[in-house]
């Protein structure tokens, strides 16, 4: 048992740190959830990609550096410590890319991944529907067989990034009348610019269009944009959901950096007693997530898996993120009310954490049933 990174990982850390020091914008980019900010974040992806820092965990042939999960954790620590911008391509990087590596064809990978790595194509996710949220398998949007492909129709919602993104991926019902709701589903990629797609941006709490409703009316997608076998979409998507809830969606580096910033803010404001406990707990919590991720990474590198444990991560980081930001706003007092404050947008973003990527109530059910072995019951 040890906590020492190998020399190659430390050399990688030093290289990443040096590059970030020379490239991270001196001032924060405009909000990702605005047209101007989206373009600025897209340009940042291109800058990262130009020196092969946008997708370090991918194989070199797709623009990556072949970093294993431990080295990726190191990269993320450096990335967030350097104050680098949020990732506009997160949906694609965290959800679609792992699915393509596991279930995609070589042709799909060659076609989709390079433009994702540069930010030239930004991907939105299209999971939820008005009547299918936590109970995703209740989805009703249809895929009807057509010559050489499928016609997609229906309504998707809470599609993050869709207000400004180029393409989307999601699940559609291709086999109506299947005996179980998670059978007969199609995992497919489609173009948000298609004339059959209507994107209606939705303002989140602060009014910014962080997500959108999608209305699809007989949108044609060719067979080559289907991932995995038709009807097997649920299984394909669940491998994605697993990686979403695991380490790759929210790395510990993000919270270590935020906890340090919170501590600095607290000191700058004279170390007020009223939030002392919460600042200390934020530092410990971020360290706990970092160490837990090292343990998970060690297990993965030995060929092990991270299964339902990922649900514990989801609950932990989403609640840690909220506490971090709430504490910062409490510290800032009246100043914390301003929409352009250093912690404001992060706070609004953190509020969504316990809801997306599988609501925390569902995650707790998974922990209780799959890790503790408690009997299933009505939700």
């Amino acid at each position, binding site marked *: 048992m040890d906590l020492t990174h190998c020399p190659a990982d430390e050399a990688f850390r030093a290289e990443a740190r040096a590059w970030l020091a020379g490239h991270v914008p001196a001032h924060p980019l405009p909000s990702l959830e605005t047209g101007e900010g989206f373009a600025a974040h897209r340009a940042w992806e291109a800058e990262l990609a130009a020196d092969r820092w946008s997708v370090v965990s991918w194989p070199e042939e797709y623009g990556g550096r072949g970093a294993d999960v431990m080295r990726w954790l190191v990269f993320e620590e450096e990335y967030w410590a350097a104050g680098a911008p949020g990732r506009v391509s997160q949906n694609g990087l965290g959800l679609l890319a792992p699915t393509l590596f596991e279930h995609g064809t070589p042709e799909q990978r060659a076609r989709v991944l390079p433009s994702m790595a540069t930010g030239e194509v930004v991907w939105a996710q299209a999971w939820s529907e008005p009547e299918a949220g936590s109970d995703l398998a209740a989805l009703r949007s249809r895929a009807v067989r057509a010559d050489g492909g499928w016609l997609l129709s229906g309504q998707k919602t809470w599609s993050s990034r869709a207000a400004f993104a180029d393409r989307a991926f999601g699940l559609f019902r291709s086999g109506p009348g299947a005996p179980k709701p998670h059978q007969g589903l199609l995992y497919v990629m489609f173009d948000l610019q298609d004339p059959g797609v209507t994107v209606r941006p939705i303002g989140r709490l602060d009014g910014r269009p962080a997500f959108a409703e999608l209305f699809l009316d007989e949108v044609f997608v060719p067979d080559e944009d289907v991932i995995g076998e038709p009807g097997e979409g649920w299984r394909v998507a669940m491998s994605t959901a697993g990686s979403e809830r695991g380490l790759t969606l929210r790395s510990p580096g993000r919270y270590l950096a935020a906890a340090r910033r919170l501590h*600095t803010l607290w000191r700058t404001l004279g170390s007020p007693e009223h939030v002392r406990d919460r600042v200390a707990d934020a530092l410990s919590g971020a360290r706990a997530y970092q160490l837990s991720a090292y343990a998970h990474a060690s297990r993965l590198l030995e060929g092990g898996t991270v299964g339902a444990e990922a649900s514990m991560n989801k609950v932990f980081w989403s609640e840690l993120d909220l506490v971090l930001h709430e504490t910062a706003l409490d510290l800032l007092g009246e100043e914390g009310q301003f929409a352009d404050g250093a912690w404001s947008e992060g706070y609004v973003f953190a509020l969504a954490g316990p809801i997306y990527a599988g609501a925390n109530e569902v995650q707790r059910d998974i922990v209780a049933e799959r890790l503790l072995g408690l009997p299933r*019951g009505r939700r």
Partner: protein
Amino acid sequence: MRFLPTAEQRAFAASLDAMLTAAGTPSAVRSWAAGDHTAGRALWSRLADAGVFALAVPESCAGVGPLPVELAVAFVELGRHAVPGPLVETVLAAALLAGDPRRPDPAAELLSALASGRAMATVGAPYALDGDAADVVLALRDGEVWRAPGARDARPCLDRARRLTTPLPGGELLLPRTPPAALGWARLATAAQAIGVGAALLDRTVAHVGRRVQFGVPIGSFQAVKHRLADAKIALEFARPLLFGAALTMDAADVAAAKGAACEAAYSTARTALQLHGAIGYTAECDLSLWLTKARALRTAWGAPHECRAAVLAAALATDPPHH
């Protein structure tokens, strides 16, 4: 990096777990609480034979250590079985004596007795746990380490298997200065014990809610019940890496963070365990009480929550980037 227990460390935990399961530890706890130390003493000898008390002691002083990771592994199991006695205090006494290379002869002899399990020690700062049972009573007085001539005023505690005593005045000065790193061993061992206490409380409660039927179904099928247990599981699972991270670095802030998180997780698990057991859990007769009361006691032993947080903040201060 491989931040996982080795096969040997897992086997060590499993062997202690099996030994303590076979030994019927709950009845030893109950007799210890009643003032009969015989069964507890027998357990102590077996733990010593397994090498538990030699882990904090360097090989040069008749120990097998220092092996803080193995010590943490062992103390998780001691907590899981609610083993009675001044376990942490004996480790602390050994760490104190081992921490001063200029220790006088009596201290060196004592150290060897502690490592081998021949002697059970307690440490008063100011209270000494189980001073009525211990062979050796150390007292921390104004930065000095004394061997007191015994202890008095054993008072029952909320954890009935713990009796706090007061070291008798006088005695023999062993070390002119308290070795500063020694307290880290006490905190680490307490944190590990708390993780084990929490794990036992969680296991017992999961078993209970799976068996207990109300409204025609096991109460463990209710979300209100599941979610409390899921939160307990999450708190314990994220305290565990802090514990082993601290054991690897033995850094004061890491140890304090581990102690704070482990004891908080154990205590909140205790509250959940009590609530979900209902009235039966509130009785002294139910074995759950052995762990419930210990979770409370460990929280303030060798570093109350505010002291642990202060150590975490002090370390963050030292590594803070400069600001204006």
